[in-house]
């Protein structure tokens, strides 16, 4: 049942992706449905699935890398749909929805419901808060990442003076710049908060968790890169291309820390 649900959600996201793509290619928005509505439908299905998953697991589906991954995908979808609605600009969806789809499919493939967390972690609400806050931070960074990617694509087309599809469909460089910067600002706040909660919890369970770990290194690196992004903008007047490149870099590190480190390299910070 739960497997049927998770693939149904994936199918809904895929449908929304296809709609975003067709709108992007033809610029015809006069259909019976808007892409955002399809996206919202998929997110609603996703919420249902998450509730069911939480019920099966007996707690919020943020424990375990792959349960967290699908929750992250959902949070991301919600954040994006709110943004789309507020900014009245749907061109980003073309890149963001496939990204959500990939996260969700990854979660579908590797989700293991039988694996349990150490009971000492399960007793703490702080742990769940820690994870959710970090997931929100990741969503904000992901938005920033995609906005930066669009920035670079559009800047390239303008530089080459060959107005192509991106040039015609996308809003302005200034729009992506602002969006990317906001993503970084919000993401940085949540990342700092999330790490603080993590450290607090680590101190409480000191004997087990406060060991040196690759995950900590990766997170610190991510934090430093995004802090640099903020600092560069505020102090050195970085804008446009440079800021976009750093945002992309930061997100690369983040992906590395989230998926690769968590799944294979990390010894201690592992949901075991």
């Amino acid at each position: 049942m739960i497997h049927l649900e998770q693939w149904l959600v994936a199918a809904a996201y895929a449908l929304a992706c296809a709609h975003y793509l067709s709108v992007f290619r033809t610029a015809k928005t006069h259909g019976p449905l808007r892409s955002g509505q399809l996206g919202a439908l998929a997110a609603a299905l996703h919420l249902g699935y998450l509730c069911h998953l939480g019920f099966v697991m007996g707690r919020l589906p943020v424990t375990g890398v792959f349960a967290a991954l699908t929750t992250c995908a959902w949070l991301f979808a919600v954040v994006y749909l709110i943004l789309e609605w507020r900014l009245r600009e749907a061109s980003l969806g073309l890149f963001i929805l496939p990204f959500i789809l990939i996260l969700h499919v990854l979660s579908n493939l590797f989700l293991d419901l039988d694996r349990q967390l150490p009971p000492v972690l399960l007793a703490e609400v702080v742990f769940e808060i820690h994870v959710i806050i970090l997931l929100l931070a990741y969503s904000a960074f992901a938005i920033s990442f995609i906005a930066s990617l669009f920035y670079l694509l559009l800047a390239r087309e303008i530089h080459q003076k060959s107005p192509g599809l991106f040039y015609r469909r996308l809003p302005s460089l200034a729009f992506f710049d602002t969006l990317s910067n906001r993503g970084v600002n919000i993401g940085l706040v949540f990342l700092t908060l999330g790490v603080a909660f993590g450290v607090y919890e680590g101190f409480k369970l000191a004997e087990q968790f406060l060991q040196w770990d690759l995950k900590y290194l990766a997170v610190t690196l991510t934090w430093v890169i995004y802090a640099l992004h903020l600092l560069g903008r505020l102090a050195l007047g970085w804008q446009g291309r440079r800021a976009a490149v750093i945002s992309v870099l930061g997100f690369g590190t983040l992906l590395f820390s989230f998926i690769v480190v968590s799944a294979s390299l990390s010894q201690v910070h592992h949901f075991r």
Partner: protein
Amino acid sequence: MPLRVYHTLLPADISPGQSHHTLAAKAEDWTVWRKEFNCEELLLVVSSERLELYLAGENSTGRAPHSASQSPAQEQEILLRFLRHQNLIAAGQRPALQLTLGKEAATRFFRSALGWLPDGRCDYRQAGALRQAHQQAQQTGMSGPIMNHLYTRALWLSEKVRLDSAFYQPSPSVATAIIEIAGKIFGELQNCTTLLVGANAEAQATARALDETQAGRLFYLPRISPEEEQLTQAVPALAPMHTANGVWEPAADLIVLFETSPLPWHEPRFLQKLMQQRHNAPMLLVDLASSPAPPQPWEKIYNLYRFARADLNRVTAQQAQARAEVLQEIEDWIAGEVASFYRWLQSTERFHFGAMVGRSHALQHVFEWIARLARTDITVLIQGESGTGKELVAKAVHEASGRAQRPFVVVNCGAIPESLLESELFGHVRGAFTGAIQNKKGLFEEANSGTIFLDEIGELPAALQVKLLRFLQENEIKRVGSNQTLKLEVRVIAASNRDLHGMVTAGKFRSDLYYRLNVVQIDLPPLRERVEDIALLAQHFLRKFAAKMRKPGRTLAPAALQKLQTYDWPGNVRELENVIERAVALSLEPEIGLAELPENVLPEIARAGSEAARASLKEMEKGYILDTLKYCGGNYDEAARVLGIGRTTLWRKLKEYQQNESEAGREEEKHEA
């Protein structure tokens, strides 16, 4: 051809400056011009650039306008006379007027409504001319259902075009390309500071375009060009750029070079200095001065976007292509509108309104008035001869209004005895008079929140006229014998076949009530004045009664129709309805000829008319009996009762017919043998 247009682009020596006022003042001549033009509706569109005269309508003789009697050349002459009469052109002037007919004329109408000029320019300001023309035509009664239909569709289309398409955006040029690229970089241009270097014609056009798009602050570099003065005159918002400590204040986001200047625009060091001044925020530099492109290839500077003329041309070309697509789309929309307009024009549906049927100009006007009045709760007075359908008008008003689901109460003031009328209309309380054994609601109360139709209002006794007036003014009634006033919300529609105005002057009808009722007056013309409706009405009734009497496929012979059209119709539509009902009942053949029409409809010629059309009494009797039998579904008792003869008589007659037929059959067989 129901629609045609004469049009021309105005030469410089014709100035239609004050023409609109002249036109309105001379509205009373309209009936004369209508005859001259041989059309029903006329719309004169005059703008600063063009002149268009739309003529529409099947005219009252049923002859197509622009028929053989009037050649285009003759019509042109009338047209020129008309224009001279309207003081639009002077006596000697003869602008070359082009004539366009049919669908193309309708296309021109829609284009005109969009402000799409024949030379390809799209100007929203030009669209106003048609609006103004229509307003005037409405005031002077020159427009009619066809023009109004066209106009409402055109309004709808122009709103759609304005909201859903890029039709009114300026046509592609250097300026639009610059604005587009700047928009792609800076987003909204309100916060974008622009510096123009040079002041040639291109610079002036660009400055104007930037000013119109509300593109932030505009500066020019002083002492570069001899045309500087023209530039600042063209766009007063332009300010000279100041230099402070060797840098410009403020820093420009967009710099456009129109003419060569002593500044080293291609030197990286200079540009880098510029970029540093603005903390490396993105900047757009458009170079239109050096052509061909600068000798050394531009090296990349972080966040600096540079465009040469050739690059700009590529953007313009793309815009032109997009523009062509937009125009094509609009053309398709217009073609769709024109097609649906013609469908509407050719359908008979537009001759129906509620239960009313009519294609005559007069009745179409009535339909339109009903549509326009219905939504308001205004009091309507309907005047027309007996049988013209006054109640149908009232019913149509009621049904087209927001009260359609509410009661519609009909009161024939002439049919109720005077002594009862008051209690009928306003109700009474118990004991108000002998026999008033309980409270009774009046018809006004029954009609509350709906409509009351007061037919034969001229028959209303004087005392009740006062009470009705009181209701119309205060919306209050008192039941007979009661002191309590009741607040009601009833729409009043009154009708009379008598000349109420004459009654007022004769002192038989209260003048204050008359003026209170006569907020809007709808005059229903008698049937003899709208001959073109007779065929349509006859057709309508024919279908109605044929279905009712189960005689499908009945048609009217041309000769019979002609008789109907020449008849005087004192009883108007009601009489026509009865004539057709009778004819259908009598008819044996699918085609209804003169034989089935009553004597009084046929003038003396019919009596001397063709013998072939007349049947012998015996034949008539046979046909009628057989038909009645069919009508009664083969029920002998019923048929005998309807025919007013005994069952046995019927039986005997039927047997006789059978015998005759079999004899005739045998005779035919003999012949064939």
